[in-house]
């Protein structure tokens, strides 16, 4: 079984937003910086007023790879991993497995939308083609 992320005060919103089908991204309330991975303090202005907000959940493929090697005994291959520039959160990328698509069909510049895989108390982001 795949390892799951530890939930911490700063990342809980990101890993559990999927329960309400929302991609939650951390922002600084004072300087409006986008913060990813989420932090307790804003790396730009050191403000501790950090807020997580739902973004649209769409984005554009910056890069990708198609994994062919079963790294764990229960891993089904091949599958694509996409590094996606997230809309409404400049500079933030979310890297996740691509679902509901032929891995070979993924391309840089492709539009994607978020979906979630719930395992225990975590909602792992996954990307699927937007159209």
């Amino acid at each position, binding site marked *: 079984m795949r*390892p799951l992320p530890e939930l911490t005060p700063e990342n809980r919103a990101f890993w559990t937003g999927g329960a309400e089908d929302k991609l939650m991204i951390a922002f600084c309330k004072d300087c409006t910086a986008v913060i990813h991975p989420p932090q307790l303090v804003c790396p730009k202005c050191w403000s501790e007023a950090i807020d997580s907000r739902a973004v649209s959940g769409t984005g554009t493929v*910056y890069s990708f790879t198609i994994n062919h090697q079963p790294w764990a005994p229960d891993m089904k291959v091949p599958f694509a991993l996409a590094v996606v520039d997230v809309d409404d959160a400049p500079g933030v990328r979310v890297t996740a497995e691509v679902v509901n698509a032929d891995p070979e069909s993924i391309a840089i510049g492709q539009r994607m939308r978020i979906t979630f895989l719930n395992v225990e108390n975590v909602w792992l982001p996954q990307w699927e083609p937007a159209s």
Partner: protein
Amino acid sequence: MTMKASITGVGMSQIGRRTERPAMAHLVEAAKRALDCAGLTRADIDGIATYPGKADNSPGMSPLGTGEVRNALGLKTRWHSAVPDGPSQMAPIMVAAMAVATGQARHVLCFRALTESSSQTATQRASIPGSGKPRIGGWLSHLVPANAMSASNWAGWMATRYFHEFGMTREHLGMVATGERAFAQMNPLAVMQSPLTMDDYLQARMISSPLGLFDCDVPIDGACVVIVSAADAAKDCAREPLVIEAMGAALGSQETWDQRADLTTMGAHDASADMWQRTDMKPGDVDVLALYDGFSIFVPYWLEALGFCGHGEAKDFIAEGNIGPGGRFPVNTGGGQLSGGRLHGFGLLHEACIQLWGDGGERQVADARTAVCGMGGGFIAGSMLLRRD
């Protein structure tokens, strides 16, 4: 500026696959060879340093810490350090250089030992960080749970973007892999000795696109030791000291494999720029290159990071024959990690030193006096310029 530190000896164990030899047996063999190389005895060693220290989060990745090695070799030390969190696998060499430059020690034994080959089983692969752990934290928590478990995935999406922007193809990376294999065939210590043609390279199975089997380095069992000595102490050693001319360890982006604004660059670019600011030497002064090749794609990144060619120009630089046998800027003349085995950078540095001492045999680069070594991939990097006066 020159650091008051030199490399005075190197030694490597008989690298192998599934050797079933204990890590310590490899380490002792490498240490003896390094001491012989330097003309030193155990009593001269007063410091010890390693990366990352004893670690069990990935099978066979680092079975030995400084404590066990001190015990086994009966060392009394004035300085010891294990650096899991430093400028890449080069951290212990850098720490040792600082230790001798500040008088904390005179001769520091730096080591790296791995038993990743023997540690692999049908259900347990090497180099899968966090494998078998129920919960994972830090930067890995944004990769491993997404099924981006292997560094080949992370390097794979770097390569995809680089290919897209600059028109690099698998053939260019094939030139890296086949060139290193040609060097390996001239190095008895290299673990891969059979010929590797471009057809072999292109027909091999895909691991994580666009990286195939021969774009990935080889897990091995083995150890390597590098002795770093103070400038005055180095004069008493058997060989000409290899002076550490400059080191670079700068990092300009987050500790992640996906958030750097331009993933056609990496930490190597920050570290290299920092290194060149500390010396009057230029890339054109370099005779031998030792560049981290955990994956073939890191070689063009390092070439550009160090300024041997411009951004996006590495594919032409490689295709023009600069880096293989007979090239102006030969890279990984011992076979690198792709063909020599994954010694986490230490094997690359070992070969650079062999070349500077003129001991490269059939693969010797004529009158090699200056070498550059770059270790690390992704967000982490360390670079070092060495010269023989």
